[in-house]
C-alpha cells in the first residue's frame, strides 16, 4: 500500500496533473462541490425535505446582502420559503447521485454489449450494433423526455415522486449506453488482432477469460475518458428533464427542478432562485468537463469516431 | 563550378517537453547538376528527416537547428515562405515513401496535377492539362485522358507511385528527392519504378537524392553514396568503403559477399566463408548516444581515442570523406 502510494507520488500522471493549473483548479472545485453535496446534512442549516421546517411566510426572501435579507437564509429562499443554500446542497446531491448512477448503468450495459459485440460472432455484432444505431439515431434527450412523459402519466404525479430517482437513473442510463458499447467494441476489435490475444487463445484459455482478463483491461482507458464526459452529460440531462417538469419533483428538488421553480419568478425580481442553482450546476458540469478534457489529453486514447 | 546543392553541417533537432533530441547532426554533402546521390543508413538514422529538411519541411516539433542548405546559391534554411513555396514542387520535387498515403483521396488525379502546375506557372487549365497528360505518358500510364478524371483509390500502388513521379516531373525540376520510393511496393514493381526513375533522371538531366536502406538499389542507380549512422556522421563512398560502419553494411549484403561485380568493391566480406557479415549490436537511441564516436560500441577498430573524441568528417588519403579516427 505504501509502495503504491509512493509510486503514485512519483508518477508522471501526478507530475503533469500538478503542472496544469486548470486541472488542479477544476479538481479542487469538483472536490469542494462534491463533498459539500455528499455532506449536505452536515453543512446545510435547514432540512429542505422537512415540511414542518418550512414557513410559506419566508417565501422569496432575497439573499443576505440585499434589502430584506434574513440572516437565517444566506442565499435567500425559494417560492415556498425553503432556504435556498440548503436546497442547493441537497439538490446537488440528488443531481450527482443520478448522474453517477446513470453513468454506472450506461457503463455496465455498454461494456457488456461492447465486449459481446466485439468478441462474439459477426451475427451477434450486427444485431447489437443495429440496436445501438437505432438507439443513437433517436437522440437520448428525446428518449428520456418521452419515457419521462409516459411514466409520469402512468404513475400519476403523486406516486411518480417516490420512483423519480431510480427512474431517472434508468432512463438516462438506457438512453446513452451505445456510447460505451461503440467505444468498447472499437477497442476490442483493435485489441483482438494483437498477438497477445492470439497467444492466449493458443494456450487454450476460455473465450470468457480472454475477454475478461486480457481484453477488457486494455479497453478501460477510453472508457475512463468518456466516463467523465458522460457524467457531465447525465447531470445536464437530468437538469433538462427536471426543467421540463419530467424529472425530480419540487418537493425533492435537484438543481434542475430548483431552476424550474425559480424560472417563473426570475423576471419578476426573484432572480436568485434561478441564478444560484444555475451557477452551481454550471460550475459542477464545467469542473467535470475540464477534468475530462485534461484526462483525454493526458491519456490520449484512440477514441472511436463515427 | 557551383554545385547544384550544397548541404553543410545540417543539424535537425526535435523539441520535447524540456529537452531537444538531435535527429540529424552535422550532415554535409554536395550534389552537382544531373548527379545522383544515394543517402543510406539504418532505420532511424535520420535519412528521411534530412530529405525533408532540404525543402525546409520538417514537421513539428522538429526544427533545423544549424547548418545550411545552399540550392543554386540560395540558403533554403533561411529563405522566406514565398521563396520556399516557389522552389518546392517547382525546382525541387519530392517523391514520398508510401504512394497510398501521398495522394489526397478526395481529389482527382487531374486536380492534383493541374493545381501543381498552376501554382508555379501562369498557364490556362487546358495547357496545364496538356502538360499533365504528357507527363503521365512519360511514366507509362495507359489511357491518361481517362485516368486524369479518376480518384487515387482507383489505382494500384505501383500506378500511384508512377503518378507521384509524374507530379514530381510536372515543372521539370532540377532535383528530385525520393524518400524510399519503393519500400511500400511489391518486389516486382520495385524494380520497374526504380528503372523508370533512373531513365527519367537521365533523359531530363535531373539531379536525384535517393533515400533508401537498400545498398543494392543505390549501387545500380546512383553515382555517389552518403552513409548516415546515428545522428548523421556521413561518409561518401564511391569505390571501397573507408568507414568501418560502411564496410560492415557492405559486408552484410549477399550480392557483395558473393559477387565482385556488384558495383561496389568488397572489403570486409570474407568471400571464402560465404557467410554474411553482421554489425554487432544495434544503433543507439537518440537520447543515449555514446561519447566520442557514436559508432564506438559496435566498431571492430575501436580504440581509446574513439571513446573520447568525436571524429570529424575529413578528406582521407584518396580524396574521399569519412568521419573516423582509424582510417587514413
Amino acid at each position, binding site marked *: 500500500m505504501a509502495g503504491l502510494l509512493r509510486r503514485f507520488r512519483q508518477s508522471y500522471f501526478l507530475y503533469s496533473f500538478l503542472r496544469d493549473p486548470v486541472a488542479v483548479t477544476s479538481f479542487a472545485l469538483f472536490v469542494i462541490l462534491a463533498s459539500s453535496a455528499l455532506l449536505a446534512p452536515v453543512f446545510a442549516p435547514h432540512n429542505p425535505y422537512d415540511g414542518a421546517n418550512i414557513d410559506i411566510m419566508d417565501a422569496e426572501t432575497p439573499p443576505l446582502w440585499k434589502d430584506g435579507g434574513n440572516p437565517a437564509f444566506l442565499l435567500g429562499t425559494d417560492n415556498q420559503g425553503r432556504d435556498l443554500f440548503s436546497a442547493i446542497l441537497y439538490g446537488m446531491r440528488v443531481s450527482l447521485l443520478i448522474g453517477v448512477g446513470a453513468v454506472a448503468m450506461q457503463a455496465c450495459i455498454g461494456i457488456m454489449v461492447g465486449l459481446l459485440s466485439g468478441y462474439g460472432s459477426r451475427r451477434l455484432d450486427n444485431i447489437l450494433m443495429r440496436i445501438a*444505431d*437505432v438507439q*443513437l*439515431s*433517436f*437522440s437520448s*434527450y*428525446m428518449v428520456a*423526455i*418521452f419515457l419521462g412523459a*409516459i411514466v*409520469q*402519466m*402512468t404513475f400519476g404525479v403523486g406516486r411518480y415522486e417516490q420512483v423519480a430517482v431510480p427512474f431517472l437513473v434508468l432512463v438516462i442510463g438506457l438512453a446513452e449506453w451505445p456510447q460505451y458499447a461503440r467505444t468498447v467494441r472499437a477497442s476490442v476489435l483493435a485489441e483482438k488482432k494483437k498477438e497477445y490475444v492470439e497467444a492466449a487463445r493458443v494456450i487454450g484459455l476460455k473465450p470468457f477469460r480472454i475477454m475478461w482478463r486480457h481484453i477488457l483491461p486494455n479497453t478501460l482507458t477510453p472508457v475512463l475518458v468518456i466516463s467523465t464526459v458522460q457524467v457531465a452529460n447525465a447531470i445536464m440531462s437530468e*437538469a*433538462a428533464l427536471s*426543467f*421540463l*417538469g419530467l424529472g425530480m419533483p419540487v418537493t425533492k428538488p435537484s438543481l*434542475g427542478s430548483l*431552476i424550474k421553480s425559480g*424560472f417563473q419568478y*426570475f423576471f419578476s425580481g426573484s432572480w436568485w432562485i434561478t441564478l444560484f442553482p*444555475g451557477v452551481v*450546476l*454550471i460550475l459542477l*458540469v*464545467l469542473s467535470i*468537463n*475540464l477534468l475530462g478534457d485534461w484526462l483525454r489529453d493526458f491519456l490520449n486514447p484512440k477514441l472511436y*469516431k463515427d | 563550378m557551383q554545385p547544384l546543392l550544397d548541404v553543410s553541417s545540417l543539424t535537425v533537432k526535435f523539441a520535447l517537453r524540456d529537452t531537444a533530441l538531435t535527429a540529424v547532426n552535422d550532415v554535409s554533402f554536395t550534389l552537382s547538376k544531373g548527379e545522383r546521390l544515394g543517402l543510406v543508413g539504418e532505420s532511424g538514422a535520420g535519412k528521411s528527416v534530412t530529405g525533408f529538411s532540404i*525543402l525546409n*519541411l520538417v*514537421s513539428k516539433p522538429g526544427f533545423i537547428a544549424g547548418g545550411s542548405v545552399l540550392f543554386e546559391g540560395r540558403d533554403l534554411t533561411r529563405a522566406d515562405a514565398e521563396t*520556399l*513555396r*516557389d*522552389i*518546392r*514542387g517547382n525546382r525541387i*520535387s*519530392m517523391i*514520398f515513401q*508510401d504512394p497510398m*498515403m*501521398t*495522394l*489526397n*483521396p*478526395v*481529389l*482527382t488525379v487531374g486536380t492534383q496535377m493541374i*493545381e*501543381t502546375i498552376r*501554382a*508555379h506557372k501562369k498557364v490556362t487549365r487546358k495547357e496545364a492539362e496538356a502538360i499533365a497528360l504528357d507527363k503521365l505518358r512519360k511514366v507509362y500510364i495507359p489511357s491518361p485522358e481517362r485516368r486524369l478524371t479518376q*480518384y487515387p483509390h*482507383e489505382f494500384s500502388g505501383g500506378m500511384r507511385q508512377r503518378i*507521384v513521379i509524374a*507530379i514530381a516531373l510536372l515543372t521539370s525540376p532540377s532535383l528530385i528527392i525520393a524518400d524510399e520510393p519503393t519500400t511500400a511496393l511489391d518486389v516486382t514493381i520495385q524494380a520497374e519504378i526504380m528503372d523508370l526513375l533512373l531513365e527519367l533522371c537521365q533523359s531530363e538531366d535531373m539531379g536525384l537524392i535517393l533515400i533508401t536502406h537498400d545498398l543494392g538499389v543505390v549501387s545500380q542507380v546512383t553515382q555517389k553514396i552518403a552513409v548516415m549512422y546515428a545522428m548523421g556522421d556521413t561518409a561518401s563512398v564511391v569505390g571501397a568503403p573507408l568507414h568501418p560502419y560502411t564496410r560492415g553494411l557492405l559486408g552484410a549484403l549477399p550480392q557483395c559477399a558473393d559477387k565482385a561485380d556488384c558495383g561496389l568493391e568488397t572489403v570486409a566480406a570474407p568471400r571464402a566463408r560465404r557467410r554474411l557479415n553482421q554489425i554487432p549490436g544495434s544503433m543507439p537511441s537518440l537520447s543515449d548516444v555514446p561519447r566520442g564516436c557514436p559508432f564506438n560500441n559496435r566498431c571492430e577498430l575501436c580504440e581509446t581515442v574513439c571513446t573520447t573524441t568525436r571524429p570529424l568528417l575529413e578528406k582521407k588519403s584518396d580524396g574521399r570523406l569519412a568521419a573516423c579516427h582509424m582510417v587514413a
Partner: protein
Amino acid sequence: MFAFIVRRVAQALLVMFIITREMVGVSVSVKEREALREKLGLNDPYLVQWARFTKNALQGDLGTSYFYRKPALDVILSKAPATLELVFVAQCIIVLISVPVGVYSACRPRSVLSRLFMGISIVGVSVPVFLTAIFMIYIFSVHLGWLPSFGRGNPVEIFPGWTSVLTTWSNFKHIILPSIALSSIMLPLFIRLIRAEMKEALETEYVKFARAKGLPEWRVVMVHAFKNTLLPVITVGGVQLGIMIAFTILTETVFQWQGMGFMFVEAVERADTALLVAYLIFVGAIFVAVNTVVDLIYGFVNPMVRIAGRK
C-alpha cells in the same frame, strides 16, 4: 441507396411501433381505459393493432388530438414551420461560426486566440441550453431591452400553411435569441470536432505532399485538409441535427416559441397522447429524411462511396 432507405424506414417504424404501443391510453382511469381499449381495438393482437395503425398512418391519419379536437397531423403541421425555421437558423449560425473557428484553431493550436476559443467552447458545452436562454433573456430583453423575450411576433404566411418570421426585421428579431440559445449547445461540439479532424488531416502525408508541391498555404488548408475534414463532420452533423430537434423542446419552452417542442410540453401536461404519438412519428420521419440527405451529401463528397454506388 434504395436498400438504405428501406432499412432506415423499417428501423424507424420498429421503434415507433414499440413506443406507440406503450403510449396509447395510459393517462385515463382504469375503467375508462378498459372502455377505451375496447373502442380503439387495443385488445386485439399487437400485430393487428400495428397493421391498423400503420395503415392509418400511411393515409396521413395519426389520430385525433383530445385537446385541439383536430387531427393530430394537422396540429403538428401547423406548428412544424416554426420549429424547422428555428433549427435552420441555428444550423446556419453553427456552420458560419464553427468552420472558421475550428479551422483557425487547428492551424494555430498554440495561439492565444485558439486557446480562448477552446476555453469558451468548454464553458459553452457546460451551460445547459435553458440556462443560456434564461440568461440571454435577462441580459438582452429585460436589462437592455434590445430584443423581444418570447413568442414569434406576427409571422407572415409565405406559402399556404407556412408562416415565417424571416421576412421582416421586426419578426426576425424574435428568432435571434432562440436560435443562438439552440446553437449554443452544438456550436462547441462542432468547433471541437472540426478542430480535431482538421488537426489530424493537417498531419497526413498528402498534406505534407501538397506542401512539398509548393501549393499556396490557403489551398493546402482549405482544399487538401478541409475537404477530408468534411466527411466525419457531415456524418456527425446529421446525428446532431436530430439531437437539435430534441433541444428545441427546451428552447421553445423558455421562449414560448409556438413550435412543435412547445406543443409537445403542453401535450404532456394535458396528457394528449394522440398528439404525442403523432409528434414522435413526425420527428422520426424528419430523422429519416435528414439521415438520407446526409448520406447523399456524404456520397457526393466521398469518391469511394460514389464508386460503390456505380458498380
